Each structure stands twice: as structure tokens, then as C-alpha cells.
């Protein structure tokens, strides 16, 4: 007996399960807080299972876009509901689902309007995963903007320290960035020989050099992709926290509630980097070849500067927030390598940093819930009361300091190896490695400093007479995240083989553009 193959719209399920869940959540009566929590956990757990299933079911030997769905939406304007995942987006979908699920678990004890909190979180996850699966530019921007507003409310309502300021700053930064990128995307649409937003078609056109033609600006003939790559890339890079557009990151991450910080550092920054890759690099490879060797300097500054700043922070959450900027800089450096090794490292770094940031912020939140302070000078000795959370922080810290055997090393190693391999691109590329590498030593210093001050030493029993261990749900969240560090660190192929299938076409696109620019 054969079972007829019914295509299950798995990606739509993944994207819209949280959205539908968010709406249904609001129907639960207000006083039934536990019901709302359980429902949110169920919805996010189901989403995680779907994402895991997609991760396993994806055919790695075939590669390319899979689980594709396509429906007409506004065909006159070339807008379709068109989704699919490849080796680049699939890890990020999985990451989003992981962070959503664990974010719900660690937010269990929030008493202030849990219905709305979880609804916003689910909505945010829906928008983020939409960006990762979208194969139509308009759809991508649609989801991108959906993902902005829940962040504002999450921070402004449930946040701490200057929350209104941080929320407004974050939204304005990302909004301005995305609008600039949107203008670039529209310019692309109008210069394209085929009027479409279909990213497959646009990529095909880009491969044939359709966007490398000259346009006239104020009487000057300029190549289109040279002109528009930078605004589009940097517009998205604002969300990825690239220096000097990183200013929203420390305030936003620190002011957000725990789950919000997990989302911001864990996934939202990846949305920026991912879109910069998909829209900027992939559609304007000529521009990428022209500009990325310059942009990489911003990333080098970001890596060093943020690590140095982290080292002197007095607020535990700010330490982790600044560290995100440094780790995301490695994503940009990997992009700038423009070869398979570097791009694989960059995408893996997105996943690795996502899980790491989630676990670090989660543990910081657990400490804060007990101590009601994040000042390093007032903390200390928490390892004794919350051993598993300490272990989670240590593991996340080891990833942050690029310890071999953990996912961060695999990613950063490939980023550096990619830059070495790309040394023909620009003479200063070896210097990029040499300049950026000390940031790894600095990260060891700030992680150990934070670890030392928070978890070791003596617990001040006068100040903290009632500290308890973290809850069982918190432990589930920590374990769910931490297994990925070791899994990828010891068996890198779990991720790298998959990612490689996704970045190979991008790398060949860039190589083609490089050859064309030499001609």
C-alpha cells in the first residue's frame, strides 16, 4: 500500500502556528494565567517540533529550496506568497523556534499581563520566521515590519531601566534602516528587466549581471549595484548591530524583559544579517564584491570595540549585550570572505550566537529574578544556589570565547579560514584576521570576569536571604539550548553540511561577480 504524497505546507504551519496561537491566547479569560502560559508553551513547543521535523526531513544531498509553497497574492505587481527554505534559512528557522520555546519557559513567572506578553512573543516569532522563509521581496519586508512592533511593546511594557527610551530607540533605528533598505529594494524592482519581486527570478537576473548596469544619477553614470548595495546592506545591518549603527543594541537588549533580550540578541539580529545577505549580497553581488572588502573594517572595529566595552561594564546584562555586537561582527567578516568557507562560518555563527545569546540572557534573567540587581559588584556566589544555571552560563561563555569543542569555535574558525582563503580579494584581508583575533582573547576576559563576579565567591546571605534554585522549566530551557553547543562543537557536520548546500550558490554568484568585475 502506498500512501499518496500530500504536500504538507510545513513552512506555513511553522510561520502561522505562533500567529494563530497569539490570537487564540487573547481569547483565554484574563484571570486564567496558568492556562495562558500552558497554551503558549504548547504552541511554541509544537512550532519547535515542526521546525525540528523540517530540519531532519530536509534533503541535504539535494540542497536548494525545499518545502516550497507558492500562491498568487498580487500577481499584477509580481507579488506572491512564496516560501521555501535552504541551507541558510533552515538553521535560522530552527533557531527561532528554539528561542521562542525557551523564551516562553523562562517567562513563566511573569505576573504582569501574561496573556499579552506571550501573544506578543508569538507574534514576534511569527514575523521573524516569516522573514527567514520568504522568497518574495515584498513578503520578506512584510514580515520584517511585522517583527518590529511586538519588540516595542515587549520592551516598553515588560522591560526595565529606561524601557520607554530603549524601546523607542530600537524601533526608530530598525525602522529607519529597513525603510532605506526598502527603497533600495524598490529601486531594484524598477531597474529590473522583469518586473517581479520573486527572489528566484531576481537572483537569476543578478547572476546574469542585470543589476550591474549603469544608471544616471545627477548626470553621473554610476553602476546600479555600486550605488544601492551599501544602503541596502547597511540598512539591514543596523538590525544586525553593525558598528557604528549598533547604538540601539546595548540599551534595547538590557531594557528588554528576559525573553525579549533572548529574542533580540538571539534572533532579531540574525534577521538583519540574513536580510542583508539575501537582499544585499545575493541580489547585488557586484556591489558586494565592490563594497564588502571595505565594510569589513566596520566589523573589525565592532569586534574589538564591543569586546573592550564589555570588559568594563558594571551591569551584567550590558556585558552580554555588548558582546552580541562583537559576535555579530564575525558574521559580517564571514560575509566579506565571499567564499564557501567564510559564508558557512557566518551562517553557523548566526545559529551559534543565537543559541548562546539566548542562554546567556536567560541565565542573567534568572539571576536578576532572584537578586533584583544586575550590578556585578553586588552579585556573587550564585553558583551555590543555581548550579545548572551556572553551568548554562559557563557553556554559553565557552562558546562566546571560541573554545574548541563548542559551536562558536567551529563558526569563528571557518570565518577566519574563509578570510585567509580569500586573501586574493584584498591585500588587507590577512590583517582583518590579525586585527579581529584579539577580540577572542578579550571575550575570554569579559566572560570570566562576569562569571567570577556573578557566580563565584561568597553569596551575600544578608542581601539575598531567600535565593532559590531556578525552576524545573528554567532547567528544561537551559538544557534545550545547551545541547546544541556541544552537538555542533563535536559533530560540526550536523550543521555545516546543511549550511554548505545553502551558501554554495551564493559563493558561486559572488565569484562570478568577481570575475566580471575584473573583466
Amino acid at each position, binding site marked *: 500500500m502506498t500512501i499518496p504524497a500530500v504536500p504538507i505546507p510545513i513552512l506555513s504551519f511553522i510561520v502561522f502556528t505562533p500567529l494563530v496561537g497569539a490570537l487564540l491566547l487573547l481569547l483565554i479569560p484574563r484571570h486564567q494565567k496558568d492556562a495562558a502560559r500552558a497554551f503558549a508553551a504548547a504552541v511554541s513547543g509544537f512550532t519547535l517540533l515542526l521546525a525540528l521535523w523540517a530540519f531532519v526531513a530536509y534533503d541535504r544531498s539535494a540542497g536548494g529550496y525545499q518545502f516550497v509553497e507558492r500562491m498568487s497574492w498580487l500577481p499584477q505587481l509580481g507579488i506572491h506568497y512564496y516560501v521555501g527554505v535552504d541551507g541558510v534559512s533552515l538553521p535560522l528557522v530552527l533557531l527561532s523556534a528554539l528561542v521562542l520555546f525557551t523564551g516562553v519557559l523562562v517567562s513563566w513567572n511573569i505576573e504582569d499581563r501574561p496573556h499579552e506578553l506571550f501573544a506578543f512573543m508569538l507574534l514576534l516569532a511569527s514575523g521573524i520566521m516569516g522573514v527567514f522563509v520568504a522568497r518574495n521581496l515584498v513578503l520578506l519586508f512584510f514580515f520584517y515590519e511585522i517583527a518590529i512592533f511586538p519588540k516595542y511593546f515587549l520592551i516598553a511594557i515588560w522591560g526595565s531601566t529606561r524601557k520607554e527610551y530603549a524601546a523607542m530607540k530600537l524601533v526608530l533605528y530598525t525602522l529607519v534602516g529597513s525603510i532605506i533598505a526598502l527603497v533600495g529594494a524598490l529601486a531594484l524592482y524598477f531597474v529590473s528587466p522583469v518586473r517581479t519581486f520573486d527572489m528566484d527570478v531576481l537572483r537569476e537576473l543578478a547572476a546574469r549581471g542585470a543589476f550591474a548596469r549603469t544608471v544616471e544619477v545627477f548626470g553621473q553614470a554610476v553602476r546600479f549595484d555600486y550605488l544601492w548595495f551599501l544602503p541596502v546592506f547597511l540598512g539591514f545591518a543596523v538590525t544586525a548591530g553593525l558598528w557604528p549603527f549598533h547604538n540601539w543594541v546595548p540599551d534595547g537588549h538590557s531594557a528588554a524583559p528576559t525573553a525579549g533580550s533572548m529574542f533580540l540578541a538571539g534572533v532579531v539580529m540574525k534577521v538583519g544579517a540574513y536580510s542583508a545577505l539575501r537582499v544585499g549580497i545575493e541580489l547585488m553581488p557586484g556591489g558586494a564584491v565592490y563594497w564588502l572588502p571595505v565594510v569589513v573594517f566596520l566589523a573589525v572595529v565592532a569586534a574589538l570595540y564591543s569586546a573592550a566595552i564589555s570588559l568594563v561594564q558594571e551591569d551584567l546584562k550590558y556585558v552580554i549585550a555588548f558582546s552580541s555586537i562583537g559576535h555579530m561582527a564575525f558574521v559580517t567578516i564571514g560575509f566579506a570572505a565571499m567564499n564557501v568557507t567564510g559564508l558557512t562560518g557566518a551562517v553557523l555563527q548566526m545559529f551559534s550566537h543565537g543559541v548562546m545569546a539566548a542562554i546567556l540572557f536567560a541565565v542573567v534573567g534568572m539571576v536578576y529574578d532572584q537578586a533584583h540587581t544586575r550590578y556585578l559588584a553586588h552579585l556573587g556566589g550564585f553558583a551555590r544556589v543555581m548550579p545548572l544555571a551556572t553551568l548554562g552560563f559557563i557553556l554559553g561563555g565557552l562558546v562566546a570565547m571560541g573554545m574548541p*569543542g563548542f559551536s562558536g569555535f567551529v563558526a569563528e574558525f571557518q570565518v577566519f579560514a574563509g578570510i585567509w582563503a580569500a586573501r586574493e580579494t584584498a591585500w588587507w584581508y590577512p590583517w582583518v584576521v590579525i586585527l579581529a583575533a584579539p577580540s577572542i582573547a578579550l571575550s575570554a576576559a569579559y566572560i570570566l570576569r562576569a562569571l567570577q563576579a556573578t557566580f*563565584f565567591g561568597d553569596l551575600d546571605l544578608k542581601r539575598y536571604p531567600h535565593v532559590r534554585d531556578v525552576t524545573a522549566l528554567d532547567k528544561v530551557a537551559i538544557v534545550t539550548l545547551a545541547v546544541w553547543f556541544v552537538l555542533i562543537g563535536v559533530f560540526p557536520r550536523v550543521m555545516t553540511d546543511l549550511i554548505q548546500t545553502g551558501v554554495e550558490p551564493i559563493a558561486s554568484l559572488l565569484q562570478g561577480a568577481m570575475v566580471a568585475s575584473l573583466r
Partner: protein
Amino acid sequence: MTLFGYPFPILTLITFTPLLGAGLIALTPRDSVRLHRGLALFFSLIPLALSVWLWLNLDLSRPGFQFVERVVWFPQVNAQYYLGVDGLSVMLIFLTALLTPLGVLISFNITQDPRTYFALFLALETGILGVFVSLDLLLFFLFWELGLVPMYFLINNWGAPERRHYAALKFILYTMAGSLGLLLGIQLIWAALGGAQGGTFDLLEVSRRWPALQGTLAGVPMEVVKAIVFWAFVIAFAIKVPVWPFHTWLPDAHTEAPTAGSMILAGILLKLGAYGFLRIVFPLFPMESARFALVLALLATAAIVFGAYAALGQRDFKRLVAYSSVNHMGFVVLGIAVAGYALGNPAIRDHALIAVNGAALQLFAHGLSSAAMFALVGVIYDRTHTRDLEAYGGLWARMPVYGGILIYCAMASVGLPGLAGFVAEYMVVQGAWPVFTALTAIAMLGLLITGAFIMKALQKVLHGPLNPRWARLPEISAREILAVAPLMAFMLLTGLWPAWIVPTLNAALAQLFG
């Protein structure tokens, strides 16, 4: 040996048994201290038994690496899970496997969270053993770094209360700074050999292709690239050994670490650096090694003399023993420098082979004597809670057995003929004399100071009038004797009959000179 038709993965088993033990200990209930101790001892004895088997089954007549295991690990950068051993690594594996159960035994009195302590201790063993079995540069680096983490926590959480945080941070930052250069060097080699197309971390393939490599890397002549990588490696390993003037982390780390931590630090972790010179720097950089051998010999002599002087000036018993490591490891580096010099001057190879055999034997001898000395310092510290030499005095009267053992081990450390250290240092000096005559002469004068500081320690601790504070001090316990006795036996065995170990080392080291 085969298992169901498959080659028996003996090296994997040796390396990961301690980690498995660490995992199991972490799962046991927090309060069952006896269970933690038992499990830790059990899981540290398995690698010891396996390493004895390994040594007995090593075929000395066969050149190259044996018990090889090889699996593709990380195909994107062409890294492999590639293990194999020769005589040098087998000796160091045995030393590691021997010191770990003794360290566990000496740590039975740990009361603060013994579960985590023993788990970390066993994880540390896996990291060290992994370095000795790796034949892939990336895998080597992985284990190299992995050993740092448990050591950091051992010092940080179980060290002496006053300065442990400072010492732990200094230790990890120093060694991580060194590893950063190591990592960059490994990547440069990979990139120069072809990067994604043809780049490799396979140590044997690298040592075939890399020394002869010509051309440019990113416009830089290969000569310069090689010099950069050479110095990156040398500094990383020199920090670990430690070669003067990169040694300043050592006195702090060794002094503040818990007793078993100091035993492993001095007994094995320092050997990683010397092993890196012999296993990686020489095969990969024969020309550069020969060119800069004199510098290394100079630093070695400085380490011997200054290390001894610094030890002589200490008031802290443990710090004195720590500085003595700088002094003793200086002889290792001197022997290594001679070997490096011989790589470019074939005429002196016979001398160099003696010197480098001496250096390798010194690794073993110092592993025994430093571990024993730290164990004994720990014994006295546990009883008196002070390390101040001026506070002791006349303890021999109270603890005659302890006094005898201390004198025996101290003599092994000085290099009394009949004990292991003498044979090793004699071989180094004999091999080095015709090559670096003046430096060797200075180094031998340094030996006088070695004698002086050891005598000073013995005198301050054991002789003189008994300090009344220690009138009721208990004698060394059977458990503590048991932890030191195997070391003493091997000191004597190696001192009287070095032939049990030298052929194994020689078989591996002769390969250096082709």
C-alpha cells in the same frame, strides 16, 4: 588487536574514559562523597591500565605512528579525527595516566563540592591525553584548549583562598593569548597549503609539504610567513613550558592551585609545551628551528639560573617548589634547543640525540618529582594551614616518615645519582656540552643553586628546633603515602635502570632527524 573484526579504538578509549567518568560523577547525588571518590579513582585507573597495555604493545622496531584511528570530522576545512602514538606520546600518556589517580587519591580530603571537583579533574585528563594522541592540528588545538577550562575552575574554585581568582585569571589569559597565536599559525598553514582546495591539518602531510613550500601568501614571501608561524608556535609553546621570560603565570598558578591541581600542572601541563616543540615545531620548521636554536638555548639557561635564584629567594614553600619547575624545565628546553640546532647541522646529530633523549626523560623525571613535591607540600599545608617556611621547623621529629619521603623526593628533584632526575640532566648536559659549551657550563653552575634552594627548604621544614605550634602534628597518612609511593618507585627504577624507558623515547626521537 581487533574487536568483532574492527580495529580496537584503544586511543579513543584511553582519551575519553575519564570524560565518561566525569559525566557519570556529575549525575550522582551531591552528598555521596564516597561514591564520587570511588568513581573518580576507578575511571582514572582504567586509562592507566590501558596505557600500560599500550606501552607493552608498542612496536619499537616500526617507525612512524601506531594504533592509528582516522575519521573525517569536519569536511569543510578538511579536518580529521586522526589519532596515533609513538614512543614519546606513549610515555607522556603513561605519565598522565599515572599522575591522575594519584591526584585523585591526594584529593580525597576535598570537602567543598567534591562532585564537581572530581568531574573537572577527570575532564582535565581527557583534555591532556587528547593532545598527546592527536595527529591533526585542529584536533590538537581543540584538546589543547579544552584542558584549560577545567584547570581554570580547579584553581579558581578550589585554590588557596587569598589569591586564587587572580592566579586563575592570569593562568587562563596567558595561555589563551599563546593559543591565539597557535590558532592563527594553524590557519596560516592551512591557507598556505591551499585553503579550501588542498589545505590540510594532517600533521604528517603538513610536515611533508610545508617545510618545502615556496611562493607567496597574499603577496608576502613564504619565508616571512613561515617565520611568523614559527614564532607564533614557539611563543605559544614557550608560555606553556614555560620558557623564561614567559613564565610569570607559573608561580601564581602553581602556588594557588589545589594540591592535585599543582601536581597535574607541574607534572603534565608543562610537558604539553615541550611536546609541542618536539611534535610540531621541529618537523614543520627544521630550518627556522636550527636558526633560532641558540636563542632558545639562551632562554633555557636563563630559566635554569633565574628559576633557581628565584626559588632560593622564596619564603613560601609551595612557591619555592613552583619556581623549581622553571629551573628543571630549563633543562628540557636546553635539550630541545640542541635538537633544533642539529636539524640544520647534521654533524652534531649524535650529540643532539643524546640531549633530546635526556630532555624527554627529564619530562618524565620532572613529572614524577614535581608531582611528588607538590603532593608533599600539600600534606604539610593540610596540617599546618601555612606555607611559610619560617613557620615550620623541626618537623622531622614529629613526622619521621614524612621527613624521609620529603628528603627522598627532594633528592630526586636535585638530581642525586641513582634517581631519575640525574640520568635525564646528565644526558642533556652531555649532549649539549659540545654544542653550546658556554651555556651548558652556566647551566651546570645553576645546578648548584638548585641544590642550595632544596637544602634551604629541607632545613627550614625538617630541621632546627620544633616549633611548639606543631607539637601535636599527625604523621603522614597511609593514603598520602600511597599517593607518593608509586612516584618514588619510578624515580628509583628510572635512576637505576633507565634502559626500561629510553629505547621507547629514542625510537620516536630518532625520527626527528630522519
